[in-house]
């Protein structure tokens, strides 16, 4: 498999399974460690679940484009959707010092992504959200 893959997903949560399978193949072809694969799987699932669950205000079918590239010890992931404008990087960090029982349940996904990825960038381009995530793959 090449050093990069493009995946087109429909706005259906079951598509995450297909994405995960593709990601496993990509990791194998690029000799990525289980830790890196876990980080990629988790971050992509969190983003895509969010886009599919909250991004679209109609019942139509939408496409979410995922581009994953491995260059010089770094994996870059780009996720593009035509949902409503949403910048996940503006979501407040959850207050983890509040006891679990009283803590609001939102914001956990983006908190995980921030921990697992090395770099995040968001832009709104016309009617599309574009989220770029980077992960160093030569660490372990």
């Amino acid at each position, binding site marked *: 498999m090449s050093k990069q893959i493009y995946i087109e997903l429909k706005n259906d*949560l*079951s598509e*995450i*399974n297909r994405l*995960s399978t593709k990601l496993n193949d990509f990791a194998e072809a690029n000799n990525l460690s*289980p*830790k890196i694969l*876990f980080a990629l*799987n*988790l971050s992509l*699932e*969190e983003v895509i*679940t969010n886009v599919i669950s909250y991004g679209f205000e109609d019942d139509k079918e939408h496409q979410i484009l995922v581009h994953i590239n491995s260059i010089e010890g770094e994996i870059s992931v780009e996720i593009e959707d035509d949902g409503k404008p949403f910048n996940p990087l503006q979501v407040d960090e*959850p207050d*983890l*010092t509040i006891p*679990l*029982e009283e803590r609001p*349940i939102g914001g*956990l*996904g983006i*908190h*995980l992504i921030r*921990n697992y990825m090395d770099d995040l960038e968001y832009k709104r381009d016309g009617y599309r959200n574009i989220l770029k995530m980077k992960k160093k793959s030569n660490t372990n």
Partner: protein
Amino acid sequence: MPLKVTSTEKEPGVFMIVPEGSLDTNTYSILEKRVDMILEGQPRVIALDMAYINYISSMGVRVVIKTRKALKQHDGNLVVLNLQPQVRKVFEIINALPSEQVFASTEELDKYLDRMQKKMTGN
């Protein structure tokens, strides 16, 4: 990846739940349904054996947090055991589990249950 869930009543009011596979957006509801069924009987303890969970996302963590909250409402406890390192890390990042409720082995769980039993019977 699919999720399989088995559960047993270890002793009266103490349930062991063993999910196996991936606990994610597409599978969390399988565990949630089993937990809800068990919660109806107002158990004292639910022990979640995570030995065979190799992947978890925030949706999976939410089920665990929800279970803990539901048990607390009637003074029940959730304990989690045998977390694989990569799964433990997810819980740690979210600060989702107090350390006294995480056990490294089934033996630790048994000791905990013994202590609880003694507390209840006053021995």
